[in-house]
């Protein structure tokens, strides 16, 4: 499979301007549909619920042979890696599709982590990033991003980890501090770390095997997403580009928000499908419970939420692909909305399933866990709404 090319700017632009451009975006191409089908088939085959539960219970959810197959056969890790570095050169729209599909089945492998790191790397200086991107695309390297710290702030203000000693060419930087809530931090070979220099916050590449770096697992509520705490004690690091480019950092954060939102939309979509499926099948009072308005209307409201979440994620991906100024508003909007839509849908799914959802063996709680924790990870809905308020002029 070769990943489809991303939409080029204006490709779908009609004569009436912006809205038409947006229409074009939402009109996924046949290549997009093919990508989605391929990924869905792969996920369903490779990450059945039983398999997900097995990985949940394993010391690590990362199994290198599968990871390498994902790279070799599907090119998923290289999806947004430029072609010159061995990737598919696709864009945010394709990434959103893949993450949505992985999100639907709570696939616990570090794809989102790696994708976020890849997005960060792809925005950096090729002199620094080219080799790393190649390694990621080939499936040799698992990567992640280390942004927040113990106080759980995902913006520049939350970055206290100190980057010191570097020169203007990017050599000789050392990081000291503690990063927390690092997704798949124990499995990652490469960490993209946000750190603060005298001039501001920037992103740095750090080798997980570097001296002075130590990691510990965090006990977490979401059983399908592992988080780690990473201590850095004078660890050698390379800035991805200029060492304190906060505008680039903000752009990266917006891209990350939209990527996460797409994954959440996928989770919400599957949770709704579960609820609807059960409502059709479960009989009480001599008829399927989905024939009762109380259940039917819960599902209908969830449908509005889920489709709206998908729209927000897709529109965000489109805006990113177009490098539109709208990214600034859509990104926090999408993260806030998809977080809450997923959580509400996961709740509806629990409620519709009734008592059975309270058993560990039923998957409803896994979606609830992902939704509940995911809402707070990468910044809460409330934080993102406040950012949105600022960005629309309040």
């Amino acid at each position, binding site marked *: 499979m070769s990943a489809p090319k991303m939409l080029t700017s204006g490709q779908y632009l009609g004569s009436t301007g912006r809205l038409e451009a947006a229409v074009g975006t939402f009109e996924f191409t046949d290549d997009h549909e093919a990508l989605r089908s391929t990924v869905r088939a792969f996920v369903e085959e490779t990450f059945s619920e039983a398999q997900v539960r097995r990985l949940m219970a394993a010391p690590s959810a990362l199994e290198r042979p599968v990871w390498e197959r994902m790279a070799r056969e599907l090119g998923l890790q290289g999806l947004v890696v430029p072609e010159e570095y061995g990737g598919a050169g696709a864009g945010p729209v394709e990434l959103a599709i893949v993450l949505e599909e992985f999100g639907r089945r709570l696939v616990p492998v570090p794809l989102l982590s790696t994708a976020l790191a890849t997005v960060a790397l792809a925005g950096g200086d090729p002199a620094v990033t080219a080799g790393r991107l190649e390694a990621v695309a080939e499936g040799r390297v698992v990567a992640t991003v280390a942004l927040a710290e113990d106080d759980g702030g995902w913006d520049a203000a939350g970055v206290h980890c100190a980057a010191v000693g570097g020169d203007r060419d990017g050599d000789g930087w050392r990081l000291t501090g503690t990063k927390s809530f690092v997704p798949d931090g124990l499995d990652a070979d490469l960490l993209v770390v946000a750190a603060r220099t005298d001039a501001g916050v920037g992103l740095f590449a750090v080798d997980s095997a570097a001296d002075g770096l130590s990691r510990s697992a965090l006990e977490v509520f979401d059983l399908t997403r592992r988080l780690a705490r990473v201590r850095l004690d004078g660890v050698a690091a390379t800035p991805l580009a200029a060492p304190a480019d906060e505008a680039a950092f903000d752009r990266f954060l917006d891209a990350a928000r939209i990527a996460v939102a797409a994954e959440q939309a996928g989770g919400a979509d599957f949770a709704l499908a579960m609820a609807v499926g059960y409502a059709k099948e479960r009989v009480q009072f001599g008829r399927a419970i989905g*024939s009762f308005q109380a259940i*039917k209307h819960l599902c209908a409201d969830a449908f509005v939420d889920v489709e*709206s979440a998908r729209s927000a994620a897709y529109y965000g991906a489109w805006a990113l692909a177009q490098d539109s100024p709208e990214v600034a508003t859509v990104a926090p909007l999408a993260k806030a*909305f998809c977080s809450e839509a997923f959580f509400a849908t996961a709740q509806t799914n629990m409620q519709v399933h009734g008592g059975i959802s309270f058993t560990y063996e039923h998957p409803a709680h896994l979606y609830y866990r992902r939704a509940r924790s995911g809402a707070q990870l990468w910044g809460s809905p409330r934080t993102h709404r406040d950012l949105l308020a600022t960005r629309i002029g*309040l």
Partner: protein
Amino acid sequence: MTATTGADASAQASAEQVRAQVAAWLAENWQPGGGGPRWRERLVDSGWAAPTWPVEWFGRGLHRDLRRVVAEEFTRVGAKPAALDVTQLFANTILAHGTDEQKKSFVRPLALGEHQGCLLYSEPGAGSDLAALQTRADRDGDTWVVNGQKVWTSGAREATHGFLVARTDWDVPKHRGLTFFWLPLDQPGVDIRPIHQVTGGSEFNEVFLTDAVVADSHRLGAVDDGWRVLQTALGFERLIMGAAAGGSSRQRRRADGGETTLADRQSPWTRQIGGADYVELAKKVGKADDPVTRQEIARLYTLEKVNAWNSLRARADAGRGAASPLASIGKLAMSRIVHTGVSVTTNLLGAASVLDGDTDPVAAEVNRSSFAAFVTSIGGGTDQIQRNIIGERVLGLPREPEVDKFVPFREVRKAQATRRFS
């Protein structure tokens, strides 16, 4: 597949050919500033007023994809494209279900604006459950005698005729005994009374039918087959709105009458997607920095945006000729948006929101909007009905037991057929 028909061939006329034809016709017929003498008549007779109608019925037989080309050319010279094949739901329905005689008699006056239609569907006892209507039409030779009451009819006072659905067989289940008519309104048996609405306006009417008469030649479709004709008419209403905004046909129906006029009043907020007006109002009242206000405005902005994006996706689906599940969520989403919008503006105004009229025109606007929000959550299918539609038609959840499904309508428990005045 067989050979293409003439219409299909025409549909394949290239956009450039059509563009040239329109341009040529306009060059000959259009006079800047108003079109010139008998413009409307010339336009209708040329077929460019309704390019997708058949050539023999005031159209050009073009494919719907070419509508835009025609519209573009009209707009280019400063003429308003009539697009009757989109907007004239009456003529559209008559063309779909009428006899040649009816097409001949009814379509041209409608196209010329000599006749105006209104919709006589809802009744006091048939709101959500439209098929339970109780207005009766009893045959008397070549005519039908109509008795009953219709309600929520917008434009009735300006109309010459109405699309009437009436019950003609009481001994079959409710959907199966209805017949569809094109009722002349200028007769003694038709009494139109404006409804005094809570907003102070009277966009809607009640229409009392007392031994009103309609010729059998004004019947559209077969006797007792009116439900099918009605579905066509409702479909044309949806067309008016386009697939884009989502929502049900009955909401749409109101759109060119009073309801959307009212709903629009809750603008400027909902009309300008993007929430800029909330932002301005928040600044004006000094609440831009209030965290509660910021959350609330961001939430409203979000609801508006995601609904707009849903609409874009629905429109894209429709553009591919696919029925979009997204089209069914717009009305419900809009209901939440308008009620939320009222809440946000009320909180911004605070105590001033109790004022009204000239004392505080902004408050008056919000107050009116607060009522208009119920037009969205009730009119054209309540939020509750919308959730049923989504649950059943989109998600495929089973219907409830229908107690009136296989019962002769005569035996079904019914609501009051007419409205009691207190």
